[in-house]
């Protein structure tokens, strides 16, 4: 049994005060840890030559799970970007779904093996397909939100991008449009301070992307992306505002990029070792684990149980996806246009 006597009133109050149950935070931890384990396995598979390419969400999981937990995951929309692995898991995609995408198998629910890995989509789960040029999806999110408002569906749309994507015109255009119409959209920026190799100081002349929201007529908030509960709190307020017709919110989560940009990148060429080490010390998974230990929800036994379960899930997904059939070459010309 977890030793509840060691809980302090202050730390215990945090998730309870936010209205989250013990079960909620444990499931959130599970999602974070599963995302991490899948991501790590993907790198192993790439290094072993079993898949050609990996792009990673390591370090971003806390922000994604925190904000997604604040949404109605069945009703609301997610327009992701290529680091949104944990958000897609939180939204309902399975480990198998994600591995099928990595292996580009026919059964891959995102694109049937047509897109590079990490271009997630799932119509039933309301996850919209995205492309590789960054920032373009912000406009799709505002269109979805506009339709939700016009059709009075009560849906909220969450979309996310890295801080590099905020340099794009589409990003600004989307913020402008959403502000004008007070759309039910939650804009996330997962600021890990690097757009591949280009540091934040060469992307923008401000410290916080969030300040830009004021220029579009809605609030921008900065949160510690390593603090899952802080992200949940920011997400909860943003979703509340959106649902109440008060309009968009920009949440800038300061996150860590724990890996190179992708499996094709060597970050030691441009990133000081100390920076990478500092990032590791702020790993959201470690921070959240520590919190759960402090409040007495996670002890060694439960930790081992959770991680054994995750290990089994990742093993199953890997084996399943690796064995799954490739797309049939005869299908290469399918789905250019509607086929009935």
């Amino acid at each position, binding site marked *: 049994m977890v030793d509840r006597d060691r809980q302090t009133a202050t730390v215990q109050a945090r998730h309870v005060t936010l209205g989250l149950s013990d079960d909620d935070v444990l499931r959130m931890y599970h999602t974070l840890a599963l995302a991490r384990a899948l991501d790590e396995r993907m790198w192993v598979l790439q290094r072993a030559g079993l898949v050609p390419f990996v792009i990673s969400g390591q370090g971003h999981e806390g922000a994604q799970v925190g904000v997604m937990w604040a949404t109605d995951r069945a009703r609301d929309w997610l327009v992701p970007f290529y680091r949104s692995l944990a958000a897609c898991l939180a939204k309902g995609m399975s480990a198998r779904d994600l591995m099928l995408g990595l292996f580009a198998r026919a059964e891959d629910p995102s694109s049937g093996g047509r897109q590079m890995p990490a271009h997630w989509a799932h119509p039933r789960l309301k996850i919209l397909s995205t492309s590789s040029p960054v920032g373009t999806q912000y406009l799709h999110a505002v269109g979805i939100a506009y339709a939700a408002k016009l059709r009075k569906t009560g849906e909220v749309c969450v979309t996310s991008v890295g801080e590099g994507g905020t340099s794009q015109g589409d990003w600004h255009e989307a913020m402008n449009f959403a502000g004008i119409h007070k759309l039910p959209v939650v804009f996330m920026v997962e600021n890990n301070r690097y757009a591949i190799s280009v540091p934040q100081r060469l992307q923008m002349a401000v410290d916080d992307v969030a300040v830009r929201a004021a220029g579009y007529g809605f609030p921008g908030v900065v949160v510690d992306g390593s603090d899952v509960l802080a992200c949940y709190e920011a997400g909860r307020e943003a979703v509340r505002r959106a649902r109440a017709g008060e309009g968009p919110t920009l949440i800038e989560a300061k996150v860590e990029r724990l890996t190179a940009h992708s499996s094709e990148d060597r970050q030691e060429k441009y990133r000081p070792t100390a920076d990478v080490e500092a990032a590791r010390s702020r790993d959201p998974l470690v921070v959240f684990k520590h919190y759960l230990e402090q409040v007495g929800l996670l002890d060694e036994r439960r930790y081992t149980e959770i991680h054994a379960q995750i290990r089994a899930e990742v093993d199953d997904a890997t084996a399943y996806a690796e064995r799954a059939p490739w797309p049939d070459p005869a299908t290469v010309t399918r789905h250019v246009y509607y*086929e009935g």
Partner: protein
Amino acid sequence: MPELRLLDAIRQAMYEEMKRDERVVVLGEDVGPKGGVFGATDGFWAEFGEARVLDTPLAESTIVGAAIGMAANGLIPIAEIQFSDFIFPATNQIVSEAARMRYRSNGAFGCPIVIRAPYGGGVEVHGGLYHSQSIEAFFAHVPGLKVVAPSVPYDAKGLLKAAIRDPDPVLYLEHKRLYRAVRGEVPEDDYVVPIGPAVVRRPGTTLSLFAYGQMLHEALAVAAEMAGEGIDVEVVDLQTLRPLDVETILASVRKTNKALIVYEDNRFLGFGAEVAAIIAEEAFDALDGPVMRVAGLDVPAVPYADPLAAAFMPSRAKIADAVRRLATY
């Protein structure tokens, strides 16, 4: 049957579709109380309200990008680009996003949007470099996108209704010169002209002349003139540029054995290049002469001054000259 201008036929198609299906929305710069710079949405704002007739910020990528999201969430957006020349800021949203949505999601997500864009030049249009361009070749190149360029009011209405009901993104190009210059009978009832088929506007035996938009009318005028010289020109209105009606093109060439393509875009890699290549590849045995093209000059776009604009355009004289040369080849 009432006789309408091309512009009125377009307006009527949108109006009827908005009445028929509340999912249809119109968005673009100036489409609201002003009713569009050409009047295509005149009266819509008052009738359907500002939520369905949406004046957007002056940002083309927004217009198309937001339309994509609206379509993903159950609306049928008609996005107006005020002049086709301004479409390029939205190119990424059209090419990389709208046109690929279905393919990249393995058929799971479609993108039922219509992008309307007035295009084309000539002396009467007075549009200069940035209000006269023909943009069809850029976009007809893109699988996943349909490109329509009607030339007469009846088909303009029917094709626009087809485009609105089409589950794929359609770029609907409206030649500005034709808005008020061309009239024709347009039924008041609901009808659809399918996207795809070309139309033989004038049967003939000497040679086949392929055209669309404003050039269709120039081609018909030249064909009438040539009849007096004993040259019997078949005029085919391509009307849908993608998917292209290859069958009708080849059938015409196999009948006349000669092909001339007329288009007002730049000649080099313009739409006629693809038509010529298809004919050369598929109907080589039927040809009794070179596949010829009359097109806009290879300068950036239509210049403003009248004499320069006239020099740019594929005039009736230039077309007639090509017809005579090909007929006597």
